[in-house]
């Protein structure tokens, strides 16, 4: 009979023995070495029965299917765009996935997305050679105009978003800023300058204290204090339900340059992924991931 050598939520380092015995199984960021299960990185231990895995605390973003990310246009191609994803691998946004609106061949692609533009998009495919495809057809995907971009640790993104988006919604509500969080660690913020500073502080604080108890309350207290000290009044924004990039619901922002023929509204509801009560178009692909825990 073997033994588990660590406790749940303990922080371990590479090579550290987590358990001894062949009945234990390695999983994410752990490996077997002889009779031992060892850590493959710096992380927090999670024990699920006989399976030992780690929640990593660092490591650069690796593009994954269904992730919603913020990317920057670095090249305009013949039939699409090349994007920087804040990882070792660039992505391609093909023409056919750039927008729900039909873009004809030969159109000037920079009218839609030009060099330097930031967009929110979803990763649709990653090959074994790490060729990455993205799409902007989907609720909430759009060019992010103005505002500013900060970078956070990609491993802390789930915590910054919070359960069902609770953390980020709170920050948005209390500062009046529009915020989009990408799984790749890029965050877009736009609001009154004083409030943006506070929103950034709150996000950085959530990032630093991501793994400790009572985070939501602490951030809330922090925001209330800072907004009282230095925040400025803002106009409450009702409609933007989904901007933290992990859900498939929410109203899509209409970017000034081009607008839809029909107004598309996606109500947030408990309905399954298919939208039954509007005509299905052949290029709809409304399959996005569930919120990450």
């Amino acid at each position, binding site marked *: 009979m073997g033994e588990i050598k660590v406790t749940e939520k303990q922080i371990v380092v590479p090579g550290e023995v987590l358990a001894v015995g062949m009945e234990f199984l390695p999983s994410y960021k752990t490996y077997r070495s002889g009779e031992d299960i060892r850590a493959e990185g710096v992380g927090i231990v999670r024990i699920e029965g006989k399976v030992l895995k780690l929640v990593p605390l660092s490591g650069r973003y690796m593009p994954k299917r269904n992730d919603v990310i913020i990317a920057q246009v670095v090249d305009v191609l013949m039939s699409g765009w090349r994007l920087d994803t804040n990882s070792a691998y660039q992505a391609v946004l093909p023409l056919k996935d750039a927008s729900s609106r039909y873009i004809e061949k030969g159109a000037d692609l920079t009218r839609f997305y030009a060099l*330097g533009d*930031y967009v929110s998009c979803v990763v649709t495919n990653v090959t074994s050679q790490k060729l990455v495809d993205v799409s902007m057809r989907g609720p909430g995907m759009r060019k992010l105009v103005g505002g*500013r971009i900060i970078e956070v640790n990609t491993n802390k993104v789930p915590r910054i978003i919070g359960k069902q988006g609770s953390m980020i919604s709170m920050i948005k509500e209390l500062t009046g800023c529009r915020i989009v969080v990408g799984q790749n660690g890029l965050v877009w913020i736009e609001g009154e300058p*004083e409030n943006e500073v506070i929103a*950034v502080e709150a996000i950085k604080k959530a990032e630093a204290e991501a793994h400790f108890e009572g985070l939501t309350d602490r951030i809330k207290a922090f925001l209330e204090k800072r907004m009282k000290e230095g925040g400025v009044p803002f106009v409450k924004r009702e409609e933007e339900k989904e901007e933290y990039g992990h859900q498939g619901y929410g109203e899509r922002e209409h970017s000034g340059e081009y607008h839809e023929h029909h107004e598309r509204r996606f109500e947030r509801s408990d309905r399954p992924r298919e939208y039954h009560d509007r005509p299905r178009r052949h290029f709809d692909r409304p399959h996005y991931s569930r919120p990450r825990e």
Partner: protein
Amino acid sequence: MNDEQIKHLYNSLGKGIRYDGRKLTDFRKVVTETDISKSAEGSARVKIGETEVIAGVKLIVDKPYPDTPEEGTLMVGAELLPLSSPEFESGPPGNQSIELARVVDRGVRESKMIDVKKLCIEKGEKVWMVAIDICTINDAGNLLDASALAAVLALQNTTFPEYDGTEIDYKKHTKKKLPIMKVPVTTTVFKLGDYFVVDPSTDEEKEADARLTVAFTKDGEICAMQKGGDTPLSIAEIEKMIDLSMEKCKELRKFVD
């Protein structure tokens, strides 16, 4: 940043607030430390916010330049180490690091900080050569000011090694310091649209249209200057920038006194 984002930045600057909450004329926290490398004859570490540079001084005995047979020599080198930023690569010094070295050099040399006549050992044959090397450790913007300050502190911290006339014993140090006459302090002012800021963050530095590095002596005389960036400046703007730099240099002077 793209154009819309630059506009957004200017909007914030127009309200007197920078992205990290500072005022346009605020420096981040400055922390200095000397004698951080025991193998150097003099050394210093300067942190401005998260930007960190180290400067080290090595003294060598060498032949003087033929046109100044009684003067010691000074050499300033700078390396933008790839350690300190994802944007720096290994390899021979690029324009940025050469400019950094030469701007710091100008500040130290032209201010006549060191009395080079006192570095003469034997006229025409042997003089002390002072080699300052600046190594960046973390680039979070404003390497210029951090480097200039580190170089000055390292020089103030330098002591001569023992020299018996033929060989230097680097292991034994005397208490004799470099002959220092004046102490220059440097501040660079950056132009972002219509706004002037000091001590920029990485993002601000990237978007700056122009910059003016000015070094002052204690009595308020300008002893070195360098304009960078490709946007031209009017005389009125230059005057404003010099004023702002002088104000900041007065504040920074407490670190060198």
